């Protein structure tokens, strides 16, 4: 659409259009001054309108084309920062769609004498703004998916902290849901550490696991068995009263494993396994003198 009058129209009334756009934005509730300063928003509007004009002048209204690269970059950046700042999808889309009203008004006053031209121009403008809006939403969703993926990865990493309590004593504080994918990683990293740290006792602490059903119990027993095959004893700690009762009703047999209600109790057992004990300093000194 090289003969479009739109770029020319934008060029002539840029300041006016921007002012009206800002008005439309606040009417649509898309300004969110708590998340974004008004000056910043104005700068974004001016940037976008300017680059849209340039892209239109350079050629075509195919926004996937080369001339629209700068506009696409701008929109991607805008939706990315908005997804991070916590804008809703509606507020993000309204940012672009609010441009329609000022543009239409301007077209109407320009082409009032020529209805056929007005309809044609309005149609091409609305298609263009729609395309830009859809592109913005797509980028917004992509940005949100990125955030979700990063959080998932962070959670997977968080979920497997194997900590060393003493020489030969490791602890694995399990937290949250023990679904199979995570349990697999937990088990692998634990067994790996058992080898590198030459471990005698491992304490699996389930204080942070809200529900212990048969699948969780099965995963725990498998981990215990695998560790035992490598010559390491396991203690399961953090069995709260409600979990104990539930396990009894389920009929899962955990009697083959040493279980303790608290991590401290389990640590005591682990120390005695290694022939170690914790004593008060004074008592130890008195014992040494006698």
């Amino acid at each position, binding site marked *: 659409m090289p003969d479009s009058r739109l770029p020319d129209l934008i060029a002539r009334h840029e300041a006016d259009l921007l002012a009206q756009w800002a008005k439309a934005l606040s009417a649509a509730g898309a300004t969110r001054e708590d998340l974004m300063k008004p000056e910043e928003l104005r700068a974004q509007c001016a940037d976008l309108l300017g680059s849209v004009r340039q892209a239109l002048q350079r050629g075509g209204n195919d926004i996937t084309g080369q001339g629209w690269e700068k506009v696409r970059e701008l929109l991607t950046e805008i939706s990315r920062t908005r997804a991070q700042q916590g804008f809703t999808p509606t507020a993000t889309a309204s940012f672009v769609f609010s441009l329609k009203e000022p543009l239409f008004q301007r077209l109407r006053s320009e082409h009032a004498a020529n209805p056929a031209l007005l309809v044609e121009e309005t149609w091409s403008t609305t298609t263009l703004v729609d395309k830009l809006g859809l592109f913005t939403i797509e980028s917004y969703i992509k940005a949100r998916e990125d955030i979700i993926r990063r959080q998932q990865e962070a959670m997977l990493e968080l979920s497997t902290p194997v900590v060393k309590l003493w020489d030969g004593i490791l602890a694995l504080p399990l937290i949250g*849901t023990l*679904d199979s994918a995570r349990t697999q990683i937990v088990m692998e990293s634990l067994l790996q550490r058992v080898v590198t740290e030459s471990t005698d006792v491992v304490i699996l602490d389930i204080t942070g696991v809200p*529900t*212990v059903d*048969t699948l969780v*119990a099965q995963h725990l027993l498998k981990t215990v068995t695998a560790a035992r095959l490598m010559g390491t004893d396991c203690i399961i700690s953090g069995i709260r009263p*409600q979990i104990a*009762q*539930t396990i009894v009703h389920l*009929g899962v047999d955990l009697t083959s494993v040493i279980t303790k209600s608290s991590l401290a109790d389990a640590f005591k057992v682990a120390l005695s396994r290694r022939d170690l004990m914790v004593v008060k300093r004074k008592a130890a000194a008195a014992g040494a003198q006698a």
Partner: protein
Amino acid sequence: MPLSKRDLLPIRAETDIVMVRQAVRKACIEQGFSLVEQTKFVTAASEIARNTLEYGGGGEAALETHIEGVRKGVRIVFTDQGPGIADLEQAMRDGFTTGGGMGHGLGGAKRLVEHFEITSTPGVGTTVAIARWK
């Protein structure tokens, strides 16, 4: 029994089981269940939800909360259109499993709740309802 709320929860993936557990726990807390009661009911729901997914090929759970005078209750009905269970008595027995589990799921869930109903038609599907009153 007067129904005060009913929510449909899909069970299509492993993460849906987590959602079911969370929803059931929330309902139990709202009804004033004690920690032990909550844990028992949530664990039972978790077992059945996993069966619905693994053996029933997915389905849905209808979570209902009831208020009847001073009595309050939570009921959850799991439905799937899977292959069904040919021998219910065998399936309920501890230690019996056709998958890789421990074989304590159904029997254990029944012991964890007050009301347990299972109906299954081979080739049509399975429905399990569990309920607990306060």
